[in-house]
């Protein structure tokens, strides 16, 4: 799929709200968080998902879309989507810990964020085309 800005926003929100949330629900209780309660852990993993959605829409997607303009094909290779996880993860971790004051630890965060990113990545490269046959012809727009 070669995205448009609208398509980027919609795809990100849709996949995070479906596969991303579902995966978070499943994986959170299994994270190595020491003595933190399940509800505390859920609060921070859900916050991580929410931040990924929010910061993505407001900051990252417009940046990616701008960078895409320098490409003749106006495409966004799969590799880029996978690598986006690194700066995005770092920013979300920093925001969670230092701005919102969550007690997040690096290892559980990496496991949760990393696997969720992978799930989202996989959904974007196949399954979403089954949910909507038109998605890939509309620059990633679902509506």
């Amino acid at each position, binding site marked *: 799929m070669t995205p448009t800005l609208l398509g980027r926003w919609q795809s990100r929100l849709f996949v995070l709200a479906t596969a991303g949330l579902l995966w978070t629900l499943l994986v959170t209780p299994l994270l190595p968080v020491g003595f933190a309660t399940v509800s505390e852990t859920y609060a921070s993993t859900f916050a991580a998902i929410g931040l990924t959605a929010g910061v993505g829409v407001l900051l990252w997607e417009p940046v990616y879309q701008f960078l895409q303009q*320098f490409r*003749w*094909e*106006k495409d966004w290779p799969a590799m880029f989507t996978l690598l986006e996880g690194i700066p995005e993860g770092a920013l979300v971790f920093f925001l969670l810990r230092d701005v919102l004051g969550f007690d997040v630890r690096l290892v559980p965060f990496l496991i949760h964020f990393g696997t969720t990113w992978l799930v989202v990545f996989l959904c974007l490269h*196949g399954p979403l085309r*089954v949910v909507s*046959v038109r998605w890939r012809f509309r620059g990633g727009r679902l509506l």
Partner: protein
Amino acid sequence: MPINHFAKGVKTVPTTDSSRVLAPPAPPGWDERAPELPDFLLTSPVWTDELVHESGIPVVDVPFLTVGGGMGSFAMIDCLRIAGVPTNQMKVLTNLRHPWENYAYLTGVSQLPPHYRIRSDASSMPDNIWGFPSYAVRRAFRSRSPRGFIAPLWNVLTENVFTDYWTPLAGEVFDGMRREADRVGYWDCVAHGQARMVRRRAGGGYFTVFTTQGAHKQRVVYRSGYVHLAVGYPSIRFLPDMQDYRARHGSGHRFVNAYEPHEQVYTDLVARPGTVVVRGGGIAASAIIHRLLNDREQHGAATRIVHLLRTYVDGPHGPSRFMRRRGRLGWAHQGFNWPKAAWGGQLKVRLEKLEGEDRRQLWELMAGSTTPYRRGWQRQLAQARRDGVYTAVGGVIDRVDRAEDDRLAIVYRDNATGTPRTLAADFVVDATGLIGDLRSHRLLHDLVEVSGAARNLWGRLDVSPGFEVRSLRNGAGRLFAAGAVTEGAYYAPADSLLGLQYAALRVTDQLAELGFCHRIGSGRSIAQWCRRMRGVAP
């Protein structure tokens, strides 16, 4: 040797590679042997039921008709089957035995036989409207070794960044289509023969005159509400200099076009040293040069190649920092025929919104001969440059003549200086396939001249963004067109595997609104995808 289905008894030239296609599928000629249609039909653009009845030609009712039977018709039938239309509601009128026949023929002669890579991505799948799981995933799961499993997946993950685009083999595409055709019952819809004309019917819908194939040609008139035209190229046009050469010298075996059988060129060049001029900068030119260089490496040919390019590209080119295409040493490089976003990204969205001169500008910016950057080809070319057996020059041919020694004397004008230069060569292979005017195709000629179909800014059929021939809408009836005949309208990659599927999907959506089929919404899409994965009928 593969069995030659199309030219029984005709001797084929021995080849250095025996797996290529040599005989063309029966061309959609002009059905001279069938009796003429009565004048009262020929002259009236709109026919009534009574008029047709009077002519005595049998009338067959079928709600949906697609003319062509190539890749475009296949995509259309596949999509409508998925949208719930039974096979007895649709007909495919074609001169082809199977939908990939013309494609296989054209790719075969232009040196992309079934075991070669074609030029579309892993998810441009004529046999799978979802494009998932892609050809690359399919190849990975069929592989027997860990390396064979990982290689295609790694390639699609890193394509166009660390690696070249992953592309399927032509044979993989054909095999998949055969399976899908069996699954959806495509063969039940096919009627072999030639469609002669499509006319509007008084009261809505269309009449399509059809002549059946075989010894007893029979004429039938199909009456249908919806007609889809996927007739491919109106014709493949040869450049005037080639036609001129052939007119003057009769035999054309030294000056050939890439899209006609020219195996003798390669055979001859393996037998004795020679010089060949290849004209054009597209994928066909790459494939031909690749073949010539392979013959050098594998069969000891001593061929020298002069590559003549009308536009010699010596670096990245384009009007602005944001619209700059890669290129070097003569070639313009691009993964596919169009920039990738023309299929479904921002370029597609932009083109759809433009009209008139603005639309023309974007078309022209995106068009042009390009070839994919493939590392293997690049290495081979670099070696050939070093060995002095391959030279690319910017210039245009002025004249080609037969020299005393039966070779060719070519006069070309150098782009840099504009001075005429002469060149002696054994062969010229013209790899610039030009698409003929609509008028060179009988049915399209009739559609434009008699029915008054409007043309777009490229002179092709003017279709809506939904591929409807708006000028011939008739009551509840709809006429659609897909493929090369619609270039110049709102969708650039119309003549591509994925573009034909996009057209099919757009047509299906409109037919769903008219109540002919179901809309492929999420529920149906998921259910149908599951059926496809299980290999059961839609």
